[in-house]
């Protein structure tokens, strides 16, 4: 279970998070939606400790994240970064198997490579891709390699930052199914950021909308369409008119 309590974060005068409080139960798929630049990526980075919140508390299974032993703490997580963040000095398979070749989860090279190729297959990439370098891949392929890397060590908690952005509709469908599978079959807890409403419906148990630095609305995905919240309504229907200003 992930509990966020009153998280604040400002960059200079840009007050991005202004008291985010949110609970993600274990084994659930939470989808975070919200306008561009509202701080969704920053929120995930706060949980991982990549960005230090100015105030607030983050609890993972009741344990304070800021006091946890970093290595063991991070070993429970997988993260797909918005930009992929692949290591361009390493071939694709070593990117995917990065965690499997170092530290506590280290295993023989051949085995790590085999797992990497299997994970690549799950994100719809052929084994031939394994020996290419990230710079030789298209944007969507890089994204999927990033996804394969995030799930490679079978983490308990997985963050996906816009997993389907830049993918064709068929591949987006494959990825949505994959995320659903990971939650249902492996019992992982997932937090996914997406702008793609069909993706929200495909993968979410719960939805949270970030707006104005706080969680504007949260609830089960089934309640999303009759929430009565004007912000959420405007967002999910993509209307230019409404309480959310188009120029931010």
């Amino acid at each position, binding site marked *: 279970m992930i509990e966020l309590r009153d998280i604040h974060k400002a960059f200079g005068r840009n007050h991005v998070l202004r008291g985010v409080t949110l609970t993600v139960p274990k084994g659930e798929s939470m989808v975070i939606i919200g306008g561009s630049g509202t701080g969704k990526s920053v929120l995930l980075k706060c949980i*991982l400790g990549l960005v230090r919140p100015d105030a607030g508390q983050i609890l993972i299974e009741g344990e304070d994240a800021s006091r946890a032993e970093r290595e063991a703490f991070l070993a429970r997580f997988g993260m797909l970064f918005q930009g992929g963040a692949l290591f361009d000095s390493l071939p694709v398979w070593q990117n995917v198997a990065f965690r499997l070749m*170092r*530290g506590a989860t280290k295993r023989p090279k051949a085995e790590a490579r085999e797992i990497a190729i299997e994970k690549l297959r799950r994100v719809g990439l052929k084994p031939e891709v394994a020996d290419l370098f990230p710079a030789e891949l298209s944007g969507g392929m890089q994204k999927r390699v990033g996804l394969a890397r995030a799930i490679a060590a079978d983490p308990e908690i997985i963050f996906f930052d816009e997993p389907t952005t830049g993918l064709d509709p068929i591949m987006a469908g494959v990825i949505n199914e994959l995320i659903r599978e990971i939650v249902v079959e492996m019992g992982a807890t997932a937090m996914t950021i997406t702008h793609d409403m069909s993706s929200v419906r495909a993968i979410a148990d719960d939805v949270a909308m970030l707006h104005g630095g706080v969680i504007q609305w949260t609830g089960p995905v089934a309640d999303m369409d009759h929430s009565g919240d004007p912000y959420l309504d405007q967002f999910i229907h993509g209307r230019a008119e409404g309480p959310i200003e188009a120029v931010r």
Partner: protein
Amino acid sequence: MILLNPVGALGRAVLGGLAAVGRLALYLGATLYAMVRPPFYFREFGHAVWVIGYNSLPVVGLTAIFTGAALALQIYEGGSRFNAGQVVPSIVAIGMARELGPVMAGLMVAARVSSSIAAEIGTMKVTEQIDALVTLSTDPMRYLTVPRVLAATVTVPVLVAVGDSIGIFGGYLVGTQSLGLNAAAYLRNTADYLEIWDVTSGLVKGAAFGFLIALVGCYFGMNSGRGAQGVGAATKSAVVAASVLVLAANYILTTLFFAA
């Protein structure tokens, strides 16, 4: 503003400079701390030795041969009043080994290596690769900084040794081919006057320069601003800081080694 308040501007510049030195010192401390704690990434170290050392050989060799050649000419001009046959070989050898070999190699490596390290790590920073490393339970200090700093510390002395030899050879070429000095006597004089400490002090300087150059490259890369502009600024700062530090360290080490 600068015109209106020159003292204030100067004060700010000095304070800013001091703060930067302080941050670099903290980074140095973190690097040393990471060095003595496992894991050590041998592959990254080997790769860094290759990139920093081997790939720098041509440029270090070229600068050394021209430096040695020019030095021989200069000394001949100044020394011809005395005994050029003795003076040229000994001063070329001592000058290269103690001073010009390490300084020229240091400056060339500062330009080549601190920039490439800062650009590489800076790019990793702005494309979230550093964040990804951390998330994959890998400490960027141990994975990126330590291998590069150690590699530079052990390879720059080797570059200095190569540069010394090539520089002395450059002086020999000029001395024997265009100044008409006797080849056998030139070699004998070189060997007679050059002491072990002349060479080792230059190598120690090389190690110190290598350490500083890589440290500065990593520091500016890790603290790169956002976007391509941030990486560009980090690269520029790294080259400037590395060059200045090489020259400053050279002065300090020379004082320590030879003032006593």
